[in-house]
């Protein structure tokens, strides 16, 4: 085989060879990182999806909790079945999975502002059915004793409303949290334009 120099100058060839070697070394290093982590990829994909879900454990997606839904999504399920997550979760899931964002599947509910449960204590009979139903143990109380919802722990999944035999649980909207919201200037312009 006739070895032709790339360029006539010897030193520039050496320089080129060094640059090529460094480039190859760097790409091997980064691909090692890639392949090393890929063995965990199956597990971390489910965890990545689960991290994007709101964890209300409400079951509106027709799975028994958020982790089973995450597993279903990883196996190819639809990403538009989570009403508590809203549009933002669908878009983020689409971005993660290289998929197209779709509007929320209305068969699974509609996007509503967050509510938390409130037990009307005057009517509570202490049956503990709601305590058993709550997926995050946000209701405290005992048999024949007063039950109450810990507001800071309630996820608003409204699974406690149905079991209550005296219908004493209300779902009330949260008070407005932080009215001072900065908007991106482009959004400000478009809302101004829409108003015009």
């Amino acid at each position, binding site marked *: 085989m006739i070895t032709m120099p790339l360029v006539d100058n010897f030193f520039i060839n050496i320089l080129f060879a060094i640059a090529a070697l460094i480039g190859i070394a760097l790409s091997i290093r980064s691909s090692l990182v890639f392949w090393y982590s890929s063995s965990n990829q199956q597990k971390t994909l489910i*965890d990545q999806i689960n991290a994007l879900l709101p964890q209300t454990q409400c079951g509106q997606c027709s799975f028994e*909790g958020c982790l089973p839904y*995450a597993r279903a999504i990883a196996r190819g399920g639809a990403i538009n079945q989570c009403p508590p997550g809203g549009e933002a979760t669908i878009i983020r899931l689409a971005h993660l999975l290289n998929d197209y964002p779709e509007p929320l599947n209305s068969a699974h509910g509609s996007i509503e502002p967050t509510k938390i449960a409130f037990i*009307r204590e005057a009517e509570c009979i202490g049956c503990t059915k709601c305590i058993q139903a709550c997926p995050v143990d946000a209701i405290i109380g005992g048999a024949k004793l007063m039950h109450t919802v810990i507001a800071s722990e309630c996820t608003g999944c409204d699974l406690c409303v149905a079991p209550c035999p005296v219908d*004493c*649980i209300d779902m009330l909207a949260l008070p407005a949290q932080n*009215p001072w919201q*900065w908007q*991106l200037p482009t959004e400000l312009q478009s809302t101004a334009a829409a108003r015009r």
Partner: protein
Amino acid sequence: MSSTNFLHLPRQQLRRRKIFGGIKPAPHKAASLRSRIMPMPLPPQLILPINQYHGTNSSPLVKVGDAVLKYQALTEKLDHTGAALHAPTSGRITAICSAPIAGHPDNAALCIHLQCDGDDNSLELQPCLNHDQLTGFEVLRKIDAAGIVGMGGAGFPTAHKLRLAIEHGTELLIINAAECEPYISTDEALLRERAREVVIGAELLRTACHAPRCVIAIEEDKPAAIAALRSALAHSPIELMLLHSTYPTGGEKQIVQAVTGLEVPVGQYPLNLGILLHNAGTAYAVYQAVAEGKPSISRIITLTGRALQTPKNFEALIGTPVAFLLKLCGVQEQHHLTTVMGGSLMGLQLAHTEAPVTKTTNCLIAATVEDFPQPEPELACIRCGFCAEVCPARLLPQQLYSFARTHNHTQLQSYGLDDCIECGACAYVCPSNIPLVQYYVAAKQELRTLSVAREQSEHWQTRFQFHQYRTKQEKDSARERRIPTALSPVELLPTDSSPITSVQFSRQLAQQEIADAVARANAKRSSRLATDTQMPQHPAKDKE
């Protein structure tokens, strides 16, 4: 202790350096420096926010109707984030309620309304003439009692900062007199007239934090202040350093770099390098607290802008309404377009002038259309790169802008949006008039909301996992009890044996049942509301 050891550079001057990037806007300070610092006449009413800023913790010591004397403590701090507040003048407390203040996230905060009686009766002060013989601990105690907070704009309680510095070990104390932002001239006026007091305050701070070395850093375009400082520092071991007059040299990380050449790493503070920073105004407040025994009740504020007939620096009482100060300077309402609290680059536009002056307000600009002309329309980014040239934090504003527009949160974090100091240099130089800082502030808020939501969902997930664990444990103790993970086989997830799943599984089928139950509960609630006057309130509504 940190490894940077300034002790080994004995009398050798620390060399001044340039900061990264930066801009040189026109200073606009001459107008307010034409006269001396003026004392302020007593306003009819003072509005004193109980908390310094959102998230701090103080509680009032007085009730509505109390008569208070000047220097009397009005609030006490509940933890280290709070600072005591003292009555700036004598009078009567007329209300303790929510009032609009500037810069608060909800635009209103709990304030003490003090009706001034004009007599200015004060408590007996306890000055300390031998302040140079006090120990560090005594100085710290006096600073704590006086309720001094950082006067540079951050408002961090000085005593707590000193405590952290003592714990960590300080090697260098820098007094920040840089004042780089246009329109603000408080520190310059202060140093011009009261340099001796500032130097004594710096000495006291040095005693308190046990720093072996102290530097006063000032920009080189303030000749009168520099001359006064030089004569005040004649017999003092404190050094003077003149910095290049660039904006934003006065920023915390920037001034550390300009004075020492060290860069504060991401996520850390200058204290981690053994460097303590205090504003010159804070040093003056420390002098007043220790040597004169006066708590923090007033500060120097610059009133400037073309709408004022006589712009000047005031020694204003905390809690003075902005409108009162503007009237003292002869504000011409027909030209007065906006009021800005702060400088022209980082200041906050006030919606109305009823807001009070706080311990961190350093400047009020009553602007006309000539001062702040109508911003030109935002054009498309032409990728010129001027913004990256001037960014003092060495970020890439162009990239951050495009990621903010596409809400690309992972890239925003990896490009360092959290390190943006919001100085406004990038927006200042942008040829397309893009309001870059607004994008970054909105994006930061989005990131914060997201991280709060994520923390909450992680918390709920933990509770749910414990709930499953507990239910399984209750049901059978013989089988393995493992918290299900992503790779557990399906059998280990809760099955029909647990009551919760029977409800959850049937969610899809029981959608109608749940909707009916909610409807029944709502109907009951409205019928109760109609008949029962003793309806308990929603617990969350009590939070204000």
